[in-house]
Protein backbone atom coordinates (compact mmCIF):
# COMPACT_ATOMS: atom_id res chain seq x y z
CA UNK A 1 0.00 0.00 0.00
CA UNK A 2 1.14 3.49 -0.77
CA UNK A 3 1.55 5.74 2.23
CA UNK A 4 1.64 9.52 2.39
CA UNK A 5 3.44 11.71 4.89
CA UNK A 6 1.36 13.85 7.22
CA UNK A 7 1.90 15.79 10.47
CA UNK A 8 0.97 14.33 13.81
CA UNK A 9 -0.06 16.97 16.35
CA UNK A 10 -0.21 16.16 20.04
CA UNK A 11 -1.31 18.63 22.69
CA UNK A 12 -1.35 17.89 26.41
CA UNK A 13 -4.14 20.04 27.81
CA UNK A 14 -6.14 20.46 31.02
CA UNK A 15 -9.53 18.75 30.72
CA UNK A 16 -11.57 21.97 31.12
CA UNK A 17 -9.61 23.57 28.29
CA UNK A 18 -9.70 20.61 25.89
CA UNK A 19 -12.83 21.90 24.16
CA UNK A 20 -10.94 25.09 23.26
CA UNK A 21 -8.10 23.17 21.66
CA UNK A 22 -10.61 21.13 19.67
CA UNK A 23 -12.36 24.31 18.54
CA UNK A 24 -9.08 25.80 17.33
CA UNK A 25 -8.36 22.60 15.40
CA UNK A 26 -11.77 22.58 13.75
CA UNK A 27 -11.39 26.27 12.98
CA UNK A 28 -8.32 25.68 10.79
CA UNK A 29 -10.13 22.88 8.97
CA UNK A 30 -8.72 19.82 10.71
CA UNK A 31 -11.19 17.01 10.12
CA UNK A 32 -10.55 14.54 12.91
CA UNK A 33 -9.08 14.18 16.36
CA UNK A 34 -8.88 11.75 19.25
CA UNK A 35 -8.58 12.46 22.97
CA UNK A 36 -6.60 10.09 25.18
CA UNK A 37 -6.40 9.92 28.98
CA UNK A 38 -3.35 10.60 31.12
CA UNK A 39 -2.57 9.81 34.74
CA UNK A 40 0.17 11.95 36.16
CA UNK A 41 2.94 14.30 35.25
CA UNK A 42 5.48 16.89 36.24
CA UNK A 43 6.83 20.00 34.60
CA UNK A 44 7.90 23.55 35.25
CA UNK A 45 4.74 24.30 37.22
CA UNK A 46 4.97 21.28 39.48
CA UNK A 47 3.43 17.85 39.82
CA UNK A 48 -0.16 16.77 39.17
CA UNK A 49 -2.19 13.60 39.28
CA UNK A 50 -5.47 12.82 37.58
CA UNK A 51 -8.46 14.25 39.40
CA UNK A 52 -11.93 13.36 38.22
CA UNK A 53 -13.75 15.00 41.12
CA UNK A 54 -13.60 18.50 39.71
CA UNK A 55 -11.70 17.66 36.55
CA UNK A 56 -9.67 20.81 37.11
CA UNK A 57 -6.44 18.88 37.45
CA UNK A 58 -7.05 16.18 34.84
CA UNK A 59 -5.09 16.45 31.63
CA UNK A 60 -5.95 14.97 28.25
CA UNK A 61 -3.79 14.22 25.24
CA UNK A 62 -5.27 15.68 22.07
CA UNK A 63 -4.09 13.78 18.98
CA UNK A 64 -4.68 14.81 15.41
CA UNK A 65 -3.15 13.94 12.06
CA UNK A 66 -3.36 16.47 9.29
CA UNK A 67 -1.44 17.95 6.38
CA UNK A 68 1.48 20.33 6.84
CA UNK A 69 -0.48 23.45 5.96
CA UNK A 70 -3.23 22.88 8.46
CA UNK A 71 -0.73 21.82 11.07
CA UNK A 72 1.11 25.12 10.60
CA UNK A 73 -2.12 27.06 10.82
CA UNK A 74 -3.02 25.24 14.02
CA UNK A 75 0.40 25.87 15.56
CA UNK A 76 0.18 29.56 14.75
CA UNK A 77 -3.23 29.76 16.37
CA UNK A 78 -2.36 27.82 19.47
CA UNK A 79 1.17 29.07 20.16
CA UNK A 80 0.14 32.25 21.99
CA UNK A 81 -1.86 30.09 24.39
CA UNK A 82 0.90 27.62 25.23
CA UNK A 83 2.12 29.45 28.29
CA UNK A 84 -1.11 30.80 29.75
CA UNK A 85 -2.93 27.48 29.22
CA UNK A 86 0.07 25.40 30.33
CA UNK A 87 -0.04 23.31 27.15
CA UNK A 88 2.62 21.00 25.79
CA UNK A 89 2.61 20.83 21.98
CA UNK A 90 4.41 18.10 20.02
CA UNK A 91 4.72 17.75 16.25
CA UNK A 92 6.09 14.82 14.30
CA UNK A 93 5.91 13.03 10.97
CA UNK A 94 3.62 10.13 10.37
CA UNK A 95 2.69 8.04 7.33
CA UNK A 96 -0.90 7.26 6.52
CA UNK A 97 -2.84 5.44 3.84
CA UNK A 98 -6.02 7.05 2.50
CA UNK A 99 -4.36 10.45 2.16
CA UNK A 100 -7.59 12.28 1.48
CA UNK A 101 -8.89 11.52 4.95
CA UNK A 102 -6.18 13.54 6.69
Amino acid at each position, binding site marked *: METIRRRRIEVLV*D*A*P*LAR*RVVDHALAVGIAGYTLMPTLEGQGG*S*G*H*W*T*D*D*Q*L*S*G*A*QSKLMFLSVTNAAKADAFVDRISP*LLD*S*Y*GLVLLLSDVDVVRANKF
Partner: protein
Amino acid sequence: MNGVETLLSPVILFFLLGAVAAFVRSDLSIPEAIAKGMSLYLMAAIGLKGGKQVAEAGFSIEILVAAGVGLLLSLMLPLPAFALLRRLGGLNRTDAAACAAHYGSVSVVTFVTGVEVLTAAGMPPAGYMVAVLALMETPGIVVGLLLARQAGGSAVAGAQGSRLLHETFFNGSVMLLVGSFVIGLVAPKDALAQTLPFFDGLFRGVLCLFLLDMGLIAARRFRDARAMTWRVAGLALLLPIMNGLIGVTLATLAGLEPGSAAALGILAGSASYIAAPAVVRMALPEADPGLYLGMSLAVTFPFNIIFGISLFSLYAVWIAP
Protein backbone atom coordinates in the same frame (compact mmCIF):
# COMPACT_ATOMS: atom_id res chain seq x y z
CA MET B 1 -21.72 20.19 70.82
CA ASN B 2 -18.84 18.17 72.12
CA GLY B 3 -15.58 18.74 70.30
CA VAL B 4 -13.88 15.49 71.25
CA GLU B 5 -16.90 13.42 70.31
CA THR B 6 -17.05 15.15 66.95
CA LEU B 7 -13.40 14.39 66.37
CA LEU B 8 -14.02 10.73 67.18
CA SER B 9 -16.93 10.35 64.78
CA PRO B 10 -16.04 7.77 62.11
CA VAL B 11 -16.52 10.32 59.35
CA ILE B 12 -13.78 12.56 60.74
CA LEU B 13 -11.56 9.64 61.69
CA PHE B 14 -11.62 8.32 58.15
CA PHE B 15 -10.62 11.78 56.92
CA LEU B 16 -7.69 11.75 59.33
CA LEU B 17 -6.77 8.23 58.26
CA GLY B 18 -6.56 9.41 54.67
CA ALA B 19 -4.43 12.38 55.64
CA VAL B 20 -2.07 10.21 57.69
CA ALA B 21 -1.76 7.69 54.87
CA ALA B 22 -0.81 10.46 52.47
CA PHE B 23 1.71 11.98 54.89
CA VAL B 24 3.53 8.67 55.45
CA ARG B 25 3.47 8.31 51.65
CA SER B 26 1.43 5.14 51.67
CA ASP B 27 0.25 3.97 48.25
CA LEU B 28 -3.33 3.80 49.54
CA SER B 29 -5.58 5.26 46.87
CA ILE B 30 -9.19 5.19 45.78
CA PRO B 31 -9.85 4.97 42.05
CA GLU B 32 -10.87 8.31 40.57
CA ALA B 33 -14.03 6.80 39.12
CA ILE B 34 -15.11 5.56 42.55
CA ALA B 35 -14.47 8.96 44.13
CA LYS B 36 -16.49 10.69 41.43
CA GLY B 37 -19.24 8.08 41.79
CA MET B 38 -19.39 8.65 45.55
CA SER B 39 -19.58 12.42 45.13
CA LEU B 40 -22.47 12.04 42.66
CA TYR B 41 -24.20 9.71 45.12
CA LEU B 42 -23.77 12.18 47.98
CA MET B 43 -25.17 15.05 45.95
CA ALA B 44 -28.17 13.05 44.71
CA ALA B 45 -28.82 11.82 48.24
CA ILE B 46 -28.78 15.22 49.95
CA GLY B 47 -30.79 16.73 47.11
CA LEU B 48 -33.51 14.11 47.47
CA LYS B 49 -33.51 14.35 51.24
CA GLY B 50 -33.76 18.12 51.22
CA GLY B 51 -36.57 18.09 48.68
CA LYS B 52 -38.44 15.46 50.67
CA GLN B 53 -38.11 17.49 53.87
CA VAL B 54 -39.37 20.63 52.19
CA ALA B 55 -42.29 18.67 50.71
CA GLU B 56 -43.13 17.47 54.21
CA ALA B 57 -42.66 20.78 56.01
CA GLY B 58 -44.28 22.86 53.31
CA PHE B 59 -42.97 26.12 51.91
CA SER B 60 -42.52 28.95 54.38
CA ILE B 61 -41.28 32.49 54.46
CA GLU B 62 -38.24 31.18 56.34
CA ILE B 63 -37.09 29.44 53.17
CA LEU B 64 -37.08 32.74 51.30
CA VAL B 65 -35.21 34.41 54.14
CA ALA B 66 -32.54 31.71 54.21
CA ALA B 67 -32.24 31.82 50.42
CA GLY B 68 -31.91 35.60 50.53
CA VAL B 69 -29.18 35.49 53.15
CA GLY B 70 -27.35 32.72 51.26
CA LEU B 71 -27.50 34.65 48.01
CA LEU B 72 -26.33 37.83 49.68
CA LEU B 73 -23.41 36.02 51.28
CA SER B 74 -22.22 34.41 48.10
CA LEU B 75 -22.44 37.71 46.21
CA MET B 76 -20.61 39.68 48.90
CA LEU B 77 -18.00 37.37 50.37
CA PRO B 78 -15.72 37.32 47.31
CA LEU B 79 -15.14 41.08 47.70
CA PRO B 80 -13.30 41.20 51.03
CA ALA B 81 -11.60 37.92 50.09
CA PHE B 82 -10.31 39.54 46.90
CA ALA B 83 -9.04 42.58 48.77
CA LEU B 84 -7.28 40.47 51.40
CA LEU B 85 -5.73 38.18 48.82
CA ARG B 86 -4.37 41.23 46.95
CA ARG B 87 -3.11 43.18 49.98
CA LEU B 88 -2.12 40.59 52.55
CA GLY B 89 -1.61 37.66 50.17
CA GLY B 90 0.33 39.61 47.60
CA LEU B 91 -1.41 37.82 44.73
CA ASN B 92 -1.82 39.34 41.30
CA ARG B 93 -5.34 40.37 40.33
CA THR B 94 -6.16 37.25 38.30
CA ASP B 95 -5.00 34.84 40.98
CA ALA B 96 -6.77 36.83 43.69
CA ALA B 97 -10.02 36.83 41.71
CA ALA B 98 -9.71 33.10 41.02
CA CYS B 99 -9.26 32.35 44.72
CA ALA B 100 -12.07 34.73 45.70
CA ALA B 101 -14.41 32.82 43.37
CA HIS B 102 -13.69 29.64 45.34
CA TYR B 103 -14.48 31.27 48.66
CA GLY B 104 -17.64 32.80 47.25
CA SER B 105 -18.85 29.36 46.22
CA VAL B 106 -19.42 26.46 48.63
CA SER B 107 -18.15 22.96 49.39
CA VAL B 108 -20.84 20.30 49.21
CA VAL B 109 -18.87 17.82 51.30
CA THR B 110 -18.16 20.31 54.06
CA PHE B 111 -21.89 21.02 54.18
CA VAL B 112 -22.78 17.32 54.27
CA THR B 113 -20.27 16.62 57.02
CA GLY B 114 -21.59 19.62 58.92
CA VAL B 115 -25.16 18.33 58.66
CA GLU B 116 -24.00 14.99 60.07
CA VAL B 117 -22.25 16.67 62.98
CA LEU B 118 -25.18 19.02 63.68
CA THR B 119 -27.69 16.20 63.53
CA ALA B 120 -25.60 14.07 65.88
CA ALA B 121 -25.49 17.07 68.23
CA GLY B 122 -29.29 17.31 68.22
CA MET B 123 -29.57 20.49 66.19
CA PRO B 124 -30.33 19.34 62.62
CA PRO B 125 -30.56 22.14 60.06
CA ALA B 126 -33.78 22.56 58.08
CA GLY B 127 -34.27 20.53 54.88
CA TYR B 128 -34.42 23.61 52.69
CA MET B 129 -30.76 24.32 53.45
CA VAL B 130 -29.96 21.98 50.56
CA ALA B 131 -31.71 24.39 48.23
CA VAL B 132 -29.71 27.23 49.76
CA LEU B 133 -26.55 25.19 49.16
CA ALA B 134 -27.44 24.77 45.48
CA LEU B 135 -28.25 28.48 45.26
CA MET B 136 -24.88 29.42 46.74
CA GLU B 137 -22.74 27.35 44.39
CA THR B 138 -22.63 29.70 41.42
CA PRO B 139 -23.09 33.41 42.25
CA GLY B 140 -19.76 33.63 44.07
CA ILE B 141 -18.00 32.16 41.06
CA VAL B 142 -19.59 34.74 38.77
CA VAL B 143 -18.55 37.57 41.09
CA GLY B 144 -15.00 36.21 41.14
CA LEU B 145 -14.90 36.15 37.35
CA LEU B 146 -16.26 39.70 37.20
CA LEU B 147 -13.51 40.81 39.57
CA ALA B 148 -10.98 39.28 37.18
CA ARG B 149 -12.56 40.94 34.19
CA GLN B 150 -12.51 44.31 35.87
CA ALA B 151 -8.93 43.49 36.69
CA GLY B 152 -8.32 43.12 32.96
CA GLY B 153 -8.20 39.33 33.07
CA SER B 154 -8.20 38.17 29.50
CA ALA B 155 -10.89 35.58 29.33
CA VAL B 156 -14.36 36.80 30.17
CA ALA B 157 -15.81 38.75 27.25
CA GLY B 158 -18.68 38.64 24.80
CA ALA B 159 -19.53 35.26 23.33
CA GLN B 160 -17.08 33.55 25.64
CA GLY B 161 -18.70 35.25 28.57
CA SER B 162 -22.10 33.81 27.80
CA ARG B 163 -20.56 30.39 27.30
CA LEU B 164 -18.97 30.70 30.71
CA LEU B 165 -22.19 31.72 32.37
CA HIS B 166 -23.67 28.61 30.81
CA GLU B 167 -20.86 26.43 32.17
CA THR B 168 -21.33 27.98 35.57
CA PHE B 169 -25.07 27.58 35.87
CA PHE B 170 -25.36 24.19 34.20
CA ASN B 171 -22.38 22.83 36.06
CA GLY B 172 -22.86 19.13 36.75
CA SER B 173 -23.00 19.39 40.52
CA VAL B 174 -25.53 22.25 40.41
CA MET B 175 -27.74 20.30 37.98
CA LEU B 176 -27.63 17.17 40.11
CA LEU B 177 -28.34 18.99 43.39
CA VAL B 178 -31.19 21.03 42.00
CA GLY B 179 -32.55 18.10 39.99
CA SER B 180 -32.66 15.67 42.90
CA PHE B 181 -34.06 18.39 45.16
CA VAL B 182 -36.94 18.80 42.73
CA ILE B 183 -37.39 15.03 42.45
CA GLY B 184 -37.53 14.80 46.24
CA LEU B 185 -40.10 17.58 46.19
CA VAL B 186 -42.48 16.15 43.59
CA ALA B 187 -42.09 12.35 43.68
CA PRO B 188 -44.79 10.42 45.58
CA LYS B 189 -43.79 9.66 49.14
CA ASP B 190 -44.09 5.89 48.98
CA ALA B 191 -42.11 5.65 45.76
CA LEU B 192 -39.38 7.76 47.32
CA ALA B 193 -39.42 5.56 50.39
CA GLN B 194 -38.34 2.60 48.30
CA THR B 195 -35.14 4.36 47.32
CA LEU B 196 -34.26 5.17 50.91
CA PRO B 197 -32.25 2.04 51.73
CA PHE B 198 -29.86 3.29 49.05
CA PHE B 199 -29.99 7.06 49.38
CA ASP B 200 -30.44 7.26 53.13
CA GLY B 201 -29.19 4.00 54.66
CA LEU B 202 -25.80 4.10 52.99
CA PHE B 203 -25.23 7.80 53.39
CA ARG B 204 -22.88 7.88 56.38
CA GLY B 205 -20.92 4.84 55.28
CA VAL B 206 -20.29 6.29 51.85
CA LEU B 207 -19.37 9.59 53.45
CA CYS B 208 -16.72 7.76 55.51
CA LEU B 209 -15.04 6.29 52.42
CA PHE B 210 -15.39 9.57 50.55
CA LEU B 211 -13.72 11.51 53.34
CA LEU B 212 -10.96 8.89 53.43
CA ASP B 213 -10.30 9.85 49.84
CA MET B 214 -10.59 13.57 50.56
CA GLY B 215 -8.02 13.14 53.32
CA LEU B 216 -5.65 11.52 50.84
CA ILE B 217 -6.30 14.19 48.21
CA ALA B 218 -6.02 17.16 50.57
CA ALA B 219 -2.79 15.94 52.17
CA ARG B 220 -1.20 15.06 48.83
CA ARG B 221 -2.13 18.45 47.48
CA PHE B 222 -0.66 20.03 50.58
CA ARG B 223 2.64 18.30 49.81
CA ASP B 224 2.56 19.35 46.14
CA ALA B 225 1.61 22.93 47.06
CA ARG B 226 4.78 24.73 46.11
CA ALA B 227 3.09 27.89 44.93
CA MET B 228 1.64 28.68 48.36
CA THR B 229 3.36 31.17 50.60
CA TRP B 230 2.80 31.29 54.36
CA ARG B 231 0.74 34.41 53.95
CA VAL B 232 -1.57 32.73 51.49
CA ALA B 233 -1.86 29.68 53.73
CA GLY B 234 -2.72 31.99 56.60
CA LEU B 235 -5.48 33.55 54.53
CA ALA B 236 -6.80 30.07 53.77
CA LEU B 237 -7.36 29.80 57.53
CA LEU B 238 -8.56 33.35 58.09
CA LEU B 239 -11.11 33.47 55.28
CA PRO B 240 -13.21 30.47 56.38
CA ILE B 241 -13.29 31.73 59.98
CA MET B 242 -14.26 35.22 58.92
CA ASN B 243 -16.83 34.11 56.34
CA GLY B 244 -18.27 31.45 58.61
CA LEU B 245 -18.78 33.85 61.51
CA ILE B 246 -20.33 36.45 59.22
CA GLY B 247 -22.62 33.74 57.85
CA VAL B 248 -23.80 32.58 61.26
CA THR B 249 -24.31 36.16 62.42
CA LEU B 250 -26.38 37.21 59.41
CA ALA B 251 -28.42 34.02 59.55
CA THR B 252 -29.16 34.48 63.24
CA LEU B 253 -30.10 38.13 62.71
CA ALA B 254 -32.44 37.00 59.94
CA GLY B 255 -34.15 34.74 62.46
CA LEU B 256 -33.00 31.24 61.52
CA GLU B 257 -32.78 28.75 64.40
CA PRO B 258 -29.26 27.72 65.50
CA GLY B 259 -29.01 24.51 63.42
CA SER B 260 -29.78 26.26 60.17
CA ALA B 261 -27.71 29.30 61.12
CA ALA B 262 -24.74 27.03 61.79
CA ALA B 263 -25.30 25.33 58.42
CA LEU B 264 -25.33 28.71 56.68
CA GLY B 265 -22.10 29.59 58.46
CA ILE B 266 -20.57 26.32 57.32
CA LEU B 267 -21.59 27.11 53.75
CA ALA B 268 -20.25 30.66 53.93
CA GLY B 269 -16.99 29.47 55.48
CA SER B 270 -16.46 26.66 53.00
CA ALA B 271 -14.60 26.96 49.72
CA SER B 272 -15.58 25.10 46.57
CA TYR B 273 -13.29 22.45 45.13
CA ILE B 274 -15.67 20.72 42.75
CA ALA B 275 -17.74 23.32 40.88
CA ALA B 276 -15.40 26.32 41.05
CA PRO B 277 -12.04 24.89 39.91
CA ALA B 278 -13.36 23.55 36.61
CA VAL B 279 -15.09 26.81 35.74
CA VAL B 280 -12.16 28.96 36.85
CA ARG B 281 -9.65 26.84 34.91
CA MET B 282 -11.75 27.52 31.84
CA ALA B 283 -12.43 31.19 32.48
CA LEU B 284 -9.07 32.26 33.85
CA PRO B 285 -6.47 29.96 32.34
CA GLU B 286 -3.71 32.33 33.49
CA ALA B 287 -4.61 31.86 37.14
CA ASP B 288 -2.46 29.32 38.93
CA PRO B 289 -4.47 26.17 39.83
CA GLY B 290 -1.82 25.32 42.41
CA LEU B 291 -2.94 28.40 44.34
CA TYR B 292 -6.70 28.08 44.34
CA LEU B 293 -6.78 24.31 44.69
CA GLY B 294 -4.07 24.48 47.33
CA MET B 295 -5.98 27.04 49.39
CA SER B 296 -9.43 25.51 49.14
CA LEU B 297 -8.53 21.84 49.19
CA ALA B 298 -5.33 21.55 51.16
CA VAL B 299 -5.98 24.12 53.87
CA THR B 300 -9.56 25.39 54.12
CA PHE B 301 -11.28 22.06 53.61
CA PRO B 302 -9.38 20.14 56.33
CA PHE B 303 -9.65 23.12 58.65
CA ASN B 304 -13.40 23.24 58.24
CA ILE B 305 -13.86 19.50 58.64
CA ILE B 306 -11.80 19.33 61.81
CA PHE B 307 -12.38 22.72 63.45
CA GLY B 308 -14.60 25.04 61.43
CA ILE B 309 -17.78 23.00 61.65
CA SER B 310 -17.55 22.79 65.43
CA LEU B 311 -16.60 26.45 65.71
CA PHE B 312 -19.55 27.71 63.66
CA SER B 313 -21.92 25.38 65.50
CA LEU B 314 -20.76 26.56 68.92
CA TYR B 315 -20.98 30.16 67.82
CA ALA B 316 -24.49 29.62 66.46
CA VAL B 317 -25.60 28.20 69.80
CA TRP B 318 -23.86 30.97 71.65
CA ILE B 319 -25.39 33.92 69.79
CA ALA B 320 -28.82 32.34 69.46
CA PRO B 321 -31.35 34.75 70.99
